[in-house]
């Protein structure tokens, strides 16, 4: 049976989440997104051309280690909590259909100058609207500074 009770979303959960993330030492994470004009040349598809990723800042965000590596060769995993307000602003600015589309387009996330690969994305919701996004990240093998 459908829940027909009146619920008026007022953005409270979003504001609380943003304030909490900021208070918990909020940092800035940069999504690595492809350029607006894609490279459809042969060289672009063969790894010859630089991809020219755009850095899309998202803040406030909280970054923490999610799991200790217990086996040799296993890269440590990290968790990134991002304010839904920040994500929504970028989704609107880039005229995308959803936050999921934004994350699926991303080639990775740069935090504190280090590249991380996105393994999974989930959202916590209140009254049907996301207030925080949780990204499970894995450290990239490349040691270059971003």
């Amino acid at each position: 049976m459908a829940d027909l009770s009146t619920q008026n979303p007022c953005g409270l959960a979003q504001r609380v989440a943003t304030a909490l993330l900021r208070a918990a030492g909020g940092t800035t994470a940069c999504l690595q997104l492809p350029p607006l004009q894609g490279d459809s040349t042969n060289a672009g598809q063969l790894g010859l051309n630089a991809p020219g990723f755009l850095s899309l800042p998202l803040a406030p965000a909280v970054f923490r280690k999610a799991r200790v590596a217990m086996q040799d060769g296993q890269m440590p995993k990290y968790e990134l909590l991002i304010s839904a307000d920040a994500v929504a602003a970028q989704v609107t600015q880039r005229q995308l259909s959803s936050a999921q589309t934004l994350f699926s387009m991303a080639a990775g996330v740069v935090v504190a100058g280090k590249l991380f690969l996105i393994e999974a994305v989930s959202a916590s919701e209140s009254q049907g609207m996301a207030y925080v996004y949780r990204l499970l990240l894995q450290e990239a093998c490349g040691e270059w500074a971003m």
Partner: protein
Amino acid sequence: MQNAKDTFYITLRSRLAAVNPARTMTLRAATRPGILVSEAEAPPAQPLLDVFALNWTGMQADLQLPAILARMTCEIRYCTAGTQNNAGLDRGRALEEMDSEVLKLLYPYSAPKVNYTQDPAVTMETIVFWSEPEFDPITTLRDSLSRTVKVTVFAFQEQGEQ
């Protein structure tokens, strides 16, 4: 060896555009035929559905011939969950369609080797040729079906080629 790998990919991509023009994908903001070289793209969190991914694995060199013959293994991996219209119940048919396309992409089993590092690309003196495909059994993961096809790609190393 890199020229052979590049030639193999571009050949299959051109053939796919002719065999099934509707099999396209948008990757890094560019719409292109649904085939990619995994090592030339960012690693995806989930395997991309309904596209062919070329993965270069094995490598051997025959040094007993006048020119070095490189023998490389290419694994073509593809995965499908069917279509939304059929709620995924056509995933078996979708995989069979991709199996059929693989056969068409690989035949004929050769192509002139091209150097794509130069602009415009330069056709080289030898050809790249490859074996008939070996189809692995279907792998089922929840509502998706995937398969790996192994192809051995041969190419002679030309003078001055890296």
